[in-house]
């Protein structure tokens, strides 16, 4: 059925995106030598920054 094929393709693409995204993130962490202090926001807010790691807590979001 056409609809089921489309759903399957979308699910496969989504899973691929997740794997790709996690791989790119891993590359980024490797670039930082797995130093989490680089991800501290230090109180500064930037509209283009969506990830922060402060006091061992990870946050994904927009901070104005």
């Amino acid at each position, binding site marked *: 059925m056409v609809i089921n094929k489309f759903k399957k393709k*979308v699910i496969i*693409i*989504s899973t691929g995106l997740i794997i790709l*995204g996690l*791989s790119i993130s891993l590359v980024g962490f490797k670039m930082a030598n797995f130093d989490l202090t*680089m991800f501290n926001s230090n109180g500064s807010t930037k509209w283009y920054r*969506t*990830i922060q790691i402060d006091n061992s807590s990870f946050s*994904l979001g927009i901070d104005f």
Partner: protein
Amino acid sequence: MIRSDFFEILKKSLESISKEERDKFITYYEEIIEDYKENGLTEEEALTTIGNPQNIANDILNEQGAITVKTPSSNSNILNILLLILGFPLWGSLLLAGVLILFSIYIIIWCIPLVTGVSSITFFLASLVSIVGAPFMIFDIPAVGVVQLGIGFASIGISVLLAFLTIFLSKRFMHITKNFTFRLYKILNKKVVKLW
């Protein structure tokens, strides 16, 4: 007994069977009466020969396998209404409790697709800002920018999967809710016994 009385009693006594079956029997006895009249009997004689309509109905119901229950008649609709009003504090509160419990169950069930739906939207918005802001972040702190880009892509994938999950759960729960409500309605509307 006159013909109209005979069929009125017969119809009323056969209320518990389906309309089609009832009409079949009515037609059958109408034809019997016509046959007797053709053979020279008067309508009254034909009705006497056929017998008591109540007994005829009992025989039909016994053959059909229907169960009849005789209960003392309250003899008054006004009394029934009065009993309903007086008993309202009891049955009313029980009914209200039942309705609220059912409503609570529905809310709890529907919270699941609501959560997945809202999460899908949230991840999508986060992914948009992450990907758009990633180049700026790369110029600022490259490692963080790359991680942000990766998180952005992953968030799109998560958002789409959650959207599919929301649609799937919504369809399932809609089906469950409709079926359950319909079954409950049928149970409450079921006519189990014929009261005399």
